[in-house]
């Protein structure tokens, strides 16, 4: 097991290197210049632009630029083109902002999708199953940003309360409990909307997984033993149906970086997604690169975690 993890880690480091080189090349291939050296800015003189370009190493060959980037990243001195702030500090702060949104929407997805999926599977073909299928497909088909706008408009016009950002502005003078609950309220709408698609998809998986397991021989045997229906479903069937979902846990992790670009932008939530989006718009190469590599790293860790979890959960699989 340990040997497997060690070998895999090594492989993933090599993979990460390849990915980072690819991303670096891709970003520099894309058209556009960092906004700080935009030649159409009339306030900038050519010699100033030349100086800034030199300071950013923009005129050096690509492999050198890659080298500088790795060097600065490792030394922790990598700075954003846009505001000269250390990139790692920036990412860490945004990561902390994204985390509650991520946790809350994941909680909503996983707590809601399972009951819905299981019930739909148990009552296959009944009204609940049909209507949940209909709603799930409707949610999958509607674009998230459209629903978000509808939700924002509805909540603001009907309930007259703010929904955007991480908290209500101007609440600094209020009591602590109010401020905490205000933050919770601001989590509700974006995480709910970010979760809707997830609920729809995951509940469909749970349903089909349950259906498959319920038709297995051992479930029939359990029923034949005369066990109560709940015990058959929740003890014998559900446990086996859960195994594939354990692997999904690991794959959730990279969603931290890229999963919420749309919702963070619409709700002005200062998280990683928004950071990446804005960095791309202003061609802030150090931030885009680091964020992408961070995302790649999380993906690689995620797949490793899910492999390992799978091995632990399912005795039929042995990692070697």
């Amino acid at each position, binding site marked *: 097991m340990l040997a497997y993890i060690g070998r895999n880690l090594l492989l993933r480091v090599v993979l990460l290197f390849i990915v980072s080189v690819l991303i670096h090349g891709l970003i520099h291939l894309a058209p556009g210049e960092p906004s700080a050296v935009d030649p159409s800015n009339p306030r900038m003189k050519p010699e100033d632009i030349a100086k800034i370009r030199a300071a950013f190493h923009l005129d050096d060959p690509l492999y050198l630029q890659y080298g500088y980037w790795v060097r600065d990243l490792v030394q922790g001195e990598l700075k954003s083109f846009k505001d000269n702030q250390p990139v790692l500090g920036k990412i860490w702060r945004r990561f902390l902002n994204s985390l509650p949104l991520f946790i809350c929407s994941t909680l909503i997805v996983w707590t809601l999708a399972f009951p819905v999926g299981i019930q739909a599977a148990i009552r296959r073909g009944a009204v609940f199953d049909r209507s949940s299928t209909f709603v799930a497909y409707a949610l999958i088909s509607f674009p998230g940003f459209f629903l978000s706008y509808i939700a924002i408009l509805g909540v603001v016009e009907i309930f007259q309360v703010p929904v955007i950002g991480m908290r209500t502005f101007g609440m600094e003078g209020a009591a602590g409990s109010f401020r905490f609950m205000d933050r919770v309220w601001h989590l509700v709408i974006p995480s709910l909307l970010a979760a809707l698609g997830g609920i729809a998809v995951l509940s469909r998986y749970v349903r089909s997984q349950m259906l498959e397991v319920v038709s297995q021989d051992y479930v029939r045997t359990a029923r034949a033993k005369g066990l109560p229906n709940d015990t058959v479903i929740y003890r014998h069937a559900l446990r086996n149906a859960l195994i594939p979902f354990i692997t999904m846990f690991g794959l959730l992790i990279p969603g931290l970086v890229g999963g919420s670009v749309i919702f963070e932008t*619409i709700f002005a939530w200062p998280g990683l997604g928004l950071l990446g989006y804005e960095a791309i718009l202003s061609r802030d190469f150090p931030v885009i690169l680091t964020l992408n590599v961070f995302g790649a790293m999380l993906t690689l860790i995620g797949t490793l975690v899910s492999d390992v979890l799978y091995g632990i959960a399912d005795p039929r699989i042995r990692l070697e």
Partner: protein
Amino acid sequence: MRLKRWLLFAPLLLTVFLLQSYFWVPTYEHQATGNPKRLVTYIQGSSGDAKVLNPILNADSASSNIVGHVFEGLLDLDADLNLRGRLATEWAISEKAYLFVSASNRFPDGTEVTGTQLINRIRAALKEKSFSTLAKNIKDIQVLPPEKLTQKISMTEKGEDGKPKRGEVEISFNMPARVVFSLHQVDQDFFTQLMPVIGDRYLENFPYDQHLNLPEGIQPEIETQIHAQLADLFPVAEHNPIIDFQLRKGVRFHDGHEFDVGDVKFTYEAIMNPKNLSPRTSDFEPIKFVKVLDTHRVRVVYKRLFSPAINAWMMGILPEHLLNAEAMQQEMEKRELSDAARAAFGMRDSQFNRAPVGSGSYQFVEWQSDEFIHLTRFEQYWEGPAEYHEFFMRIIPDLFTQEVEFHAGALDDYGAQPHQVSRYREDAQYQNFSSLGFGYSYIGYNNRRPLFADPEVRKALGMAINVGDFIKYLLYGEGERITGPYPKNTQWYDPSVPPLPYDPEGAKAILMSLGWTLNADGWLEKDGKVFEFNLITNNGNPIRKNIMTIAQNAWKKIGVKCNTQVFEWAVFLKDFVNTAQFDAVVLGWSMGVDPDLFQLWHSSEAGPQQLNFVGYNNPKSDDLIVRIRQEYDVKRQREMTHQLHQQIHEDQPYTFLYAPLGTKVLDKKIVLVQRDEDGNETYEKIYPTKSGNIEFYFNKWRKLEMTPDF
């Protein structure tokens, strides 16, 4: 079954917990209950985050908004856009004029020029009646002895790889004796008026060769480059305008340090320091030197006549004690930077730009990137503290989101678009304002094209368009008709110039009289060629796109064939505008407050990459443009700008369309607070100044608990 119960309860609990939080959040109507501080907090929406909070480095609107509250300049503009003292209480403009004693020249009567001769002749002449106005302006005349100057001159040479390379050469120049005149007032015609004494051609043919020492072994190409610059570097006759500022005493920076003349000098030097890469360098380039007279008096001497240069002093003043070499050294120590980082360390790298300290009405508290910037009022502000205690700039990139937050009461102000403003007009909860700003839109014709060479043609094209349609349908009424190149809210704009009438028949008649005739297809034709051209604009601006369509349709009615195209901004500039490869463009300008139009309209600025891309060329206008930027008397300046406005209106190089109105929507509870000596408050409705500035009295704004009746 425990698991079954859990599967049911967990989502239920989570949902209940999340949804109950709604009851803790204040609604719009009750936003001050339990939170009275909300009334003294102003929250402004911004679509972009600030980049650098330093008055000498910022170049974006979000940064300048914050910088404007935190920092203060020596001057600013009052309600009528005249200069007003802030950190400076008074300022006086005078001049020192220098004239070479040009020994190779002769006086009109044939005698040789010497220093004493020159000064005696001028003194004698000044006693005559015809020179009385000149004599009144002269405070003092002196002769300066010759001196030897060494100076670095920039040039381009061929590098080893054959590409041109920028470099510098040190030369020495034997400055001849000079007569220096101290003048009470700047006079751009000073030397012209002296001509009868010194001779009409005194300023020409100075033998620079005899006064120049070049380093050994210099290449002949570089020598020619140096010679070309000499007349500008060491002019025979030189104007040095001087501004003496008297600084306000007792002003403090937010950290308690007292503001004095050192801060002004430091700010100037910081801008000119090439390491800081300040985008303001060109505004301060005309300055020759800044001289400290005493702790609160400073003299600024300029290299040449350039009256708009004084406007640069509206820029915020930096605190020297926090940014000088010593402070920078301390910061580097504290941050434990590597040697490489230290070598490159400049003001741009300083943490000051993230946590600025100025002397303005608000002091900096906190900046969360892409979220908000928080300021709090400066209690010791010299004009008294502002009414709003807290100021937030929230960063919300999406305009829709901004509007939603405004409705929910989490924003007090946002960039409302014209169509939104018209929606608020019917809502009793809000007050709204529309006022003139510094921008305008136009259709520019490439004056170099034979088709547009005749002003009458351009006039006819303008007459065929109904500008009222643009304002009514594209701007929802939030625009005003304009007739010339100056912003309508400034005194430089001549309101007496009548706009072109909307008269398609008249337009057709003008073109017919120029030899155009309608052909069988209904198009105007001359010498077998149809009146046809391309009208282009940049992508991403729906209003401009619509202007093109309306104009195209209007011109079609008089038989002019216009094809329209939209290009991506970079392509639009690179392939069409910068190279002048276009027929006509729809564009807009955002102008400054000064009357200098050199870059936009002078014929010397019509080259590639320059701003007079329509190629406007009229010697009369050129002369006015130069004289306006050299004139220091506002009244005379105004007369000349009105002349220029009329001239450009006659030439119609553009069809001037409209100036869009700046709009703002505020809650009606926000009012202007006036206090008498005893501290009693009276309230007034917020109003824009004559110049169109709605936020001019911002420091007196506050939100009341109830909607007042005015």
